[in-house]
């Protein structure tokens, strides 16, 4: 491990390809979803006991939209990864196009939750 290699890891200056953004988004959304699991189980418990209220309070709008984005992005980017696993859309142009599609579709879902 002797030689010192040049290291450049300023994340604000490295320009990421769109596939990398879709990929790290998949990871970030996954972590968000895991952190929400306790609340999901609580909501399941409440809904089966009949105490459920599906109304979203005003201050909840932004977190709810963020959560909707996370679920949508994790779903779309996950489908993209599964398809790539079996060789569908694995070429660079196709992979770039599907990365844009996943990012845009998940963003649209998040926005939809924000405005509706």
């Amino acid at each position: 491990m002797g030689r010192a290699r040049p290291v450049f890891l300023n994340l604000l200056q490295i320009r990421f390809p769109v596939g990398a953004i879709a990929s790290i988004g998949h990871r970030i959304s996954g972590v968000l979803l895991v952190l929400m699991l306790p609340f999901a189980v609580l909501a399941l418990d409440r809904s089966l006991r009949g105490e459920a209220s599906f109304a979203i309070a005003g201050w909840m709008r932004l977190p709810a939209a963020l959560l909707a984005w996370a679920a949508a992005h994790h779903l779309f980017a996950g489908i993209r990864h599964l398809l790539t696993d079996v060789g569908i859309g694995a070429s660079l142009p196709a992979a770039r196009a599907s990365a844009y599609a996943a990012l845009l579709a998940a963003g649209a879902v998040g926005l939809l939750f924000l405005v509706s």
Partner: protein
Amino acid sequence: MNLLSGQRAFVVQRLSALVLLAFVAAGAARLAFGSPVTLAQWQAWAAQPFAAAALLVLSAALFAHAWVGVRDVLLDYVRPFALRLSLLAAAAAGLLLLAAWTALVLVSHAL
């Protein structure tokens, strides 16, 4: 295929993803094409044995998938061995507790 290597995590992750995808597709289709679901309908549906069993399969896939994801993230980013081991143990304990709670909620509702 050596299922005791990292390949096992890979296979569990992909298989659970497919199970989750099937449930999401079924749920989305029901909400999109069926009549609106009332709280009473949801509770009556979840009380049926086959529905409770399906929801248990869903939660098993969900928690298995969550575990592989958390495990991957911790193995990638947490390098100090003691910290890595503690976080992995905490995540495993937390997910197991949540999975047990979910099973309890589903089974007690169906009984």
